[in-house]
């Protein structure tokens, strides 16, 4: 599904070049669950931005479902971001004047989906995210955990194939953090490809595949026995009905 070939991303700071991503190779299959760890400044966020088509490589190629993304026009990249990729940020990035319902609805609105079709989809998510009685609250009136659940709702409302979470639990206490991670894992169980950047070793260890980054390169890439790591944490295994079920069978890169 995702193939990065010798991907580089350089930043010019003053007269110095920072290699945020340094000849990085990576393959990700559909439905995988990866955690990305590494010291601050090692390029984790840059990698996620790259995968999410928010950033463009300085060199190398990013193939999405076999299509070279370097050939895409800005409008096509925007429409891929909207329809096939979901972002979850550490700082939620909710729009302060919109309530929970409207924040979740936003990608549907931007995509021009008819109000009649939007409402049942948002209602369903509000129920699934346990936000029904918070639907009319603006972000200021919500707790951190609730805000991140709204942000996740917004990330998956378009039923994306790829969910990119950059330190989603960084601003949360351990209980809400665990709730959020469990939610993401449920989504992954439903078929969505999940990448989580984290500083928390316990969170990182829950993923089936782990990446460790240093200086813009992947220093370690290994599979874990997820059953074992989860039993250590005594977290409940993913249950419940999957949130994301693609019905149209469309994949990124198809348009």
């Amino acid at each position, binding site marked *: 599904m995702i193939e990065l070939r010798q991907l580089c991303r350089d930043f010019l700071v003053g007269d110095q070049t920072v290699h945020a991503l340094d000849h990085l190779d990576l393959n990700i299959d559909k439905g995988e669950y990866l955690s990305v760890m590494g010291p601050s400044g090692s390029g984790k966020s840059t990698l996620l931005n790259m995968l999410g088509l*928010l950033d463009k490589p300085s060199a190398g190629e990013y193939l999405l479902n076999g299509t070279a993304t370097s050939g895409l026009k800005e409008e096509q990249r*925007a429409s891929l971001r909207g329809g096939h990729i979901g*972002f979850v940020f550490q700082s939620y*990035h909710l729009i302060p004047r919109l309530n929970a319902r409207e924040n979740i609805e*936003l990608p549907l*609105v*931007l995509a*021009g989906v008819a109000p009649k079709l939007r409402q049942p989809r948002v209602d369903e998510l509000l129920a699934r995210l346990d936000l029904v009685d918070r639907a009319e609250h603006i972000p200021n009136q919500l707790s951190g955990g609730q805000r991140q659940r709204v942000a996740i709702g917004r990330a998956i409302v378009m039923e994306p194939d790829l969910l990119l979470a950059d330190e989603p639990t960084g601003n949360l206490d351990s209980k809400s953090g665990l709730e959020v991670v469990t939610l993401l894992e449920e989504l992954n169980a439903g078929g969505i490809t999940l990448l989580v950047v984290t500083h928390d070793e316990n969170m990182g260890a829950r993923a089936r595949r782990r990446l460790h980054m240093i200086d813009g390169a992947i220093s370690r890439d290994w599979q874990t026995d997820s059953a074992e790591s989860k039993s250590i944490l005594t977290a409940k295994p993913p249950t419940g009905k999957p949130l994301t079920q693609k019905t149209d069978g469309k994949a990124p890169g198809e348009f």
Partner: protein
Amino acid sequence: MRFRDSTRMILGAVLSNRGKSLLTALGIGVGIAAVTLLTSLGEGLQHYLLGQFSQFGTRIIAINPGKDITQGLGGIISSTKPLSLGDAESLRLLPGIERVVPVVQGAGAVEYGNRERKGDILGVGSDMPSAWQFRVAMGRFLPDDQSGRSRSYAVLGHTMKTELFGASNPLGQNIRIGGLRFRVIGVIEEKGQMLGFDMDDIVYIPTDKALQLFNREGLMEIDVTFGPSHSSTRIAERVTQRLLERHGEEDFTLTSQDEMLATMNKVLQILTIGVAALGGISLLVGAIGIATIMTITVGERTAEIGLLRSIGSSRRQVLILFLGEAVLMSVLGGLLGLLILTVVLSAIKLAVPGLPFALNPIYLIAAIVVSGLIGLVAGVVPARKAAQLDPVDALRTE
């Protein structure tokens, strides 16, 4: 994105910061009110003045003695022949000419019994009422006596009649003007004021009698009117030709009413535009206000712009959303301006009831359209800045 959704989002953003939006809109509002007010005042003045000047009709040419352009050094010591009653008579025979009014003006005391009134004394011909579009309210106007042998008849203006005779009938009564005796044969209807000049405080007498009375050699003016099928230029040519034959040189000046009105119209139009432009400065200030606030807004909402891009907004959508905010604020300003205008106009009408105002309903629509355009122009730079933001950089700002 659907139109209704864009509108709702733009409206939500503008209403989320009411104080700021209102102040920004107020800047445009004051500008719109100022421009509309000043323009309608200018136009009102224009209509008023043109109405005043065209009440004598437009197919009229005035001939005055003397030439207002001096030709070389010799022009200064040119010998000006006076315009005579003979000149006036000769014009009467020209083709196209309908009426000829020789005019002499003076001032003096008019007496009746032991009453006295100082007023204007106008020597005119029998054609005056039809040429100047005056109506006789009582009796008749001066008869068409043979030039130089006019009878001593007088016709009174409305004020003059009231002052001398009150409610009693003046017809057939004798009055004295400058020691000469005249018999009142008519009264002109009330004309009111023209540019502050009371046109009713007048007594009309035959021109030859007025020349005698004021001991003048020549006329002060000859007015000629012409038929609707003739152009003022053609008539002016004929008049000039005839007077040149009689005088030997061009020692007179022609002023045609339609030319004068056209010139005056042009001057007043320029004046109106100038005054409106003055109001336009406040509109410019309002536009700068919108541009400033929008720039600040884009700065404040950079993270939001990054987020919008990450969930599928194209640059174009971002541009439209921010441009929409600028236009909406500006149009709100336009509506606010019309509100201000209504209040100010009502206040002015209470304070100065006579002020001529021409508030064209087109202005109201124009005010909204113009304010929308101002918002578009003022918003384009900040909105483009928003659209050009790099989404990663935008998301990093907090």
